[in-house]
């Protein structure tokens, strides 16, 4: 009998691993940006227009850059800044350009269908003009962006071969989701939560509603908490819930699973990343969040954001020699 042939070893170029993480992050950012713009658009109609549109540059840490180009935050200016301005690195123009460049780098690895969809999506986003983001079109532009990003997610789920590259891709997606949720919570929580440890029941329900919708968690939250809104419960839902697809805790748990898969199936050891993840994961409990809800939440969210950034670095630096 013939000896069994040694299986062919499939390597992943380190640079390509990093590119898959970035591809996933940028595509996720497009969806997230579309959600925030859409929800703000819907929400801002009944409220103090200026304040709410400004929350978007604030979430993204873009206040200074925004004010260099625009004097006030309105649907038009914020829309232009995030949908059309290719000089702005946090615009969907920049996101899709970066996503496509990473996809191009990975073109021999990702499925043809993934590349084709990104390429066509890129064409659609690049073709956007001021006429496409006027009030009567704003919602449909956001819908187009969400559709494109979700089509990408679906095509990836159905066609990307699940070897190392897929694990890195998924890590990128979950890192981005965790990061975006902390940002959303951070800014909105500041304006929503009462400035004391006490929980105030009189918060504008519409605003909680918008926050949860931006995170795609509104209906699930209603189901879990039919009696109403409560700052602590909202924070807990977004940070510690283990069923909500965009909760920080769930995303960290998914990252851990993928890191473990990379270790057991491909012998990739990333001890620094796992250690950091372990510590971070331990903090995402309902009890911990309950203790923090209120004025200590903001520094905590800053810390979590920095740790998510560091986690990305840990993973990339493991093999960037």
């Amino acid at each position, binding site marked *: 009998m013939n000896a069994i042939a040694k299986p062919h*070893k499939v*390597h*992943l170029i380190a640079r390509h691993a990093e590119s898959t993480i970035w591809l996933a992050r940028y595509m996720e950012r497009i969806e997230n940006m579309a959600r925030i713009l859409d929800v703000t658009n819907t929400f801002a109609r009944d409220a103090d227009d200026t304040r709410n549109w400004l929350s978007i540059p604030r979430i993204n840490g873009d206040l200074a850059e925004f004010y260099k180009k625009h004097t006030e935050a309105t649907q038009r200016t914020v829309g232009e800044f995030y949908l059309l301005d290719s000089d702005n690195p946090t615009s969907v123009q920049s996101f899709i350009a970066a996503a496509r460049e990473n996809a191009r780098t990975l*073109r021999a690895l990702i499925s043809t269908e993934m590349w084709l969809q990104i390429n066509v999506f890129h064409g659609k986003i690049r073709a956007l003009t001021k006429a496409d983001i006027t009030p009567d079109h704003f919602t449909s532009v956001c819908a187009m962006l969400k559709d494109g990003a979700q089509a990408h997610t679906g095509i990836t789920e159905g066609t990307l071969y699940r070897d190392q590259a897929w694990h890195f891709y998924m890590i990128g997606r979950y890192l981005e989701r965790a990061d975006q949720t902390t940002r959303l919570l951070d800014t909105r929580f500041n304006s929503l939560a009462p400035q004391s440890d006490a929980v105030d029941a009189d918060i504008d329900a519409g605003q909680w509603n918008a926050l949860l919708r931006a995170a795609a968690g509104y209906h699930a939250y209603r189901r879990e908490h039919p009696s109403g809104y409560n700052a602590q419960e909202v924070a807990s839902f977004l940070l510690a819930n283990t069923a909500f697809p965009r909760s920080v805790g769930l995303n960290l748990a998914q990252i851990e699973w993928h890191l473990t898969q990379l270790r057991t199936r491909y012998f990739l050891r990333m001890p620094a990343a796992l250690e950091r993840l372990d510590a971070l994961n331990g903090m995402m409990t309902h009890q911990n969040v309950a203790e923090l809800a209120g004025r200590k939440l903001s520094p905590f969210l800053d810390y979590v954001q920095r740790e998510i950034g560091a986690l990305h670095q840990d993973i990339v630096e493991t093999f960037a020699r």
Partner: protein
Amino acid sequence: MPVGGMSQTQVQSQLQAQLQSHGAMQGYDPNSFFCEMLRPGQPLHPTLTLLMSRLASLPIESLRQRAQDAERDLLDRGITFTVYSDATAIDRILPFDLIPRVITPAEWHQIETGVVQRVRALNMFLYDIYHERKILKDKIVPADLVLKNAGYCQAMVGFDVPFNTYVHVCGTDIVRDETGAFRVLEDNARTPSGVAYVVENRHMSLRVMSDLMTSLRVRGVDEYGLRLHNAMAEIAPAGVEDPQVVVLSPGIFNSAYFEHVFLAREMGVPLVEGRDLTVEGGKVWMRTTSGLAQVHTIYRRIGDDFLDPDAFNPDSMLGVRGLIEAWRRGQVAIANAVGTGVADDKAIYAYMPRIIKYYLSEEPILPNVDTRICAEPDALAYTLDHLHELVVKPVAESGGYGLLIGPHASKAQLSEFRALLKADPANYISQPTLKLSVSPTLCEDGVRPRHIDLRPFAVTGRDTWVLPGGLTRVALRAGTLVVNSSQGGGSKDTWVLAE
């Protein structure tokens, strides 16, 4: 196919008349050019007859709609090359003409054996000029032409490559004259490009012209990646069981990047850039997620000069430091070998018939275009006298730039070129203007004859294999002979009919 008592010529002229009064082919008239579809004076192949009647039955609007769909599809799929200007990057497609170019089994036999013969001769020539230099000592080829050639690489002298194969991938540019005879126009022995389009054009035909292909027996082109990988594995350093092959690209900004992606994907190997490779302990490694992994064969799509800053251009950022030394020590294979540029130089081209005869004692199966070497006084005098009827080419250029097409040149252009030629005759060769064959092509004013050429791709490890077909390039502008993509050329699917 029964032709009921009529002579072949009668059938052909009937067919032609029928074509020219019906459907998409209405008004098609190749004049005195050899038409690849109608083939005046050649035996009719039943498949061609069927194909022509299918084409004739298609309304022109249907062809236009399909052409539009194909163009959209190419852009969406990113089967493009990127053109960079000041601040913008524009993705351009190589225009696809959906009327295929057909090659009969007999024609293919000549092309295939002719290409194999030529590749053999090229490899023997390269071995010789980097070893004993017999062909120079026997004064078959002038020594200066070889040894002082910019493509001659000192680092290759005395160095052995597996199976004495230097040109692992060769693209032979072939044209057809007004008699229907095939002639070689040029050898591409460095890093010939275009094979991705051969395969993608076929896929496009299958998508938009499937009704045209129904039940026709056309030879497949999907084997290329497998064949190339096998050749790359064959040339890997001895004793390696499962050699690691990579495709080395200059990166995503290179205009041929799509093809690099295609090659890596079809071979199932990593697509790397210089920065992904490193030489340590005399071996070549790639940087992977699990550390350094050894690389055994590099199919490189980077020019010689940029391969290794230690050996060649010290400013190159694209290459790998120490690569050539590792290669010389037999730790890695590089395809194509360094220093093959001397063999596909237009000056050497003129000697190819003599080179074939010298090494193989055979007549060339595919003749050259008659070529005069302006470095030789008689040839220069003839060229100057007949400038208005000749094509004059600089020997060191490629891409269709800097050449003179006498019959199309103005008086001023002729005298300007005359001066250039006199100033540096050794830089030029001249050839008669060819009446290149034409193929029916969808144009603004209907289906019209346009000039075409053919670049078959030959893959050589131990032996040579030729991909059935090749890249058919078409000069889309009426009257023009230049088929290069940089000069407004397009391409067609190439069908080699099965026996």
